[in-house]
């Protein structure tokens, strides 16, 4: 019984992280139509950012998002403007460019750290919340709460704010959005920044639990792709629910089958869902075509 609960809390932790990363990835894909291979690198930057913040100021990693999230928003916006915008008329090259960013980032971190693994300490690690007879690690509760809040915040932002509506308009029909007077390139920059910032947030939340290595981002990018497609392209709620489906599946498969098979099991579930519901759990069938129907 306790084993199962332990596994479930691990699954919730992973699921929350995947959900945050996937909400950003889904936003970038839905709006800019770029499959962002560098999304895992933004998680890595979040991890190392939390480390740098602790080294420089002694800051607890759970407070690091206050610095890391704005920095990654700016970094994402700059990467979009400098690298991806010039390739705007060639979507395939944009995808290759994000893969290039991934390679550059991993090797730069390897060179800078000399391959030494880092870790950060948090005062909150080891604390737990009692739920009747069950003890749940505080770090898990924090991740669950932040993932829920972030998903709700992004969904409300897209639904109700002027900028959020502009983002949705660009996702649905970029030519019509231009005719409304929306600066489509600015919306792309904003969206890429938000996606990077969310991944950075996930990195900070993970930092007390994971040992940092240059390739750590790879652990998140593949599951995040699965989450986006599983949850439904363009659906924020889908990315949230999909995140937990994938996180729990991974934790359960790792325990009951074999840790080496956990990614295989994720992708079997992923394929099974797509066979039954080709548009994903929460996707709108054909939604991706709406955005693709005009590339002007």
């Amino acid at each position, binding site marked *: 019984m306790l084993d199962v609960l332990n596994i479930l809390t691990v699954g919730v932790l992973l699921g929350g992280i995947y959900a945050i990363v996937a909400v950003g990835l889904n936003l970038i894909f839905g709006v800019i139509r770029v499959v962002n291979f560098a999304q895992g690198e933004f998680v890595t930057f979040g991890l190392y950012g939390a480390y740098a913040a602790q080294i420089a100021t002694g800051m607890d990693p759970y407070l690091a998002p206050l610095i890391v999230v704005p920095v990654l928003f700016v970094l994402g916006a700059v990467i979009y403007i400098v690298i991806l915008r010039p390739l705007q008329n060639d979507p395939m090259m944009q995808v290759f460019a994000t893969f290039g960013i991934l390679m550059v980032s991993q090797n730069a971190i390897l060179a800078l750290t000399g391959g030494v693994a880092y870790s950060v300490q948090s005062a909150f690690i080891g604390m737990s919340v009692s739920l009747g007879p069950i003890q749940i690690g505080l770090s898990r509760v924090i991740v669950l709460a932040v993932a829920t809040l972030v998903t709700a915040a992004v969904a409300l932002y897209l639904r109700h704010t*002027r900028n959020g*509506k*502009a983002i*949705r*308009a660009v996702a*649905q*029909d970029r*030519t*019509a*959005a*231009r*005719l*409304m*007077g*929306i*600066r*489509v390139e600015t919306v792309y920059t904003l969206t890429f920044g938000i996606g990077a910032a969310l991944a950075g947030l996930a990195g900070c939340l993970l930092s007390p639990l994971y040992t940092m290595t240059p390739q750590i981002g790879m652990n998140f990018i593949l599951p995040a792709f699965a989450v986006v497609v599983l949850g439904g392209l363009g659906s924020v709620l889908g990315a949230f629910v999909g995140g937990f489906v994938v996180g729990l599946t991974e934790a359960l498969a790792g325990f009951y089958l074999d840790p080496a098979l956990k990614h295989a099991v994720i992708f079997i579930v992923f394929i099974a869902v797509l066979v039954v519901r080709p548009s994903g759990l929460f996707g*709108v069938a054909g*939604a991706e075509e*709406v955005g693709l129907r005009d590339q*002007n």
Partner: protein
Amino acid sequence: MSTTQQTVPMLEVRGLSTGYGNIPVLHDVSFEVPQGKVTAVIGANGAGKTTLLSTIAGLIPATSGQLMLDGTDISRTPAASRTAAGLALVPEGGRLFPFMTVRENLELGAYSLGRDAGMRQRIAEICEIFPVLAERQSQMAGHLSGGERQMCAVARAMMSRPRLLMLDEPSVGLSPLMTERLLSTISDLAASEALTVVIVEQRVTEVLAMAELAHMLDHGRIMKSGTAGEFRTDRMIQETYMGR
């Protein structure tokens, strides 16, 4: 109220050429659209009518030529800023945002006005002109019928309080009755909102009945310009476009 102001056309197209890649579509097109009038552009499929409107709206870059909106050169102005300058295009098929409500579509129509406190009032005004939209406000735009969709597209364009409204084949896919209703609504708008209208239409008889001026586009060139009355009685126009 000086006389010079009245003689400045709302839109002046001077020697406009454009194309897709290396394929030229418009060749040295020049014409004027006078203030407050309805101008029709007619022509066969592939004559370059949609390209002409898209270039004026800034969606396609011109390869050469000049565009003057109410005396201001907008040739190098990006599309989004042309909307803010008072130009609105209703593209072919309307191109509503299908997964947004009618109300959200209307709100986005006013995006170029900035954070406008008058949004509610403008939506109420527009719904008076397009009563069918009033009851559909919370419905997804993608679920509207063809006629409602076109009405909504015109209404969305009017939300930005344009001075020049351009319409690309608004009657496509509509029944003759619906076309008549839509065109008469556009005529009413032109009369009541001090609006200048440029309309591209396949239904030549109907559009020449509502327009004051007309241009005929053929293979990317203006082949004939005149009043709508002249066009209606022109033998060649009648035979080619009006099926007589």
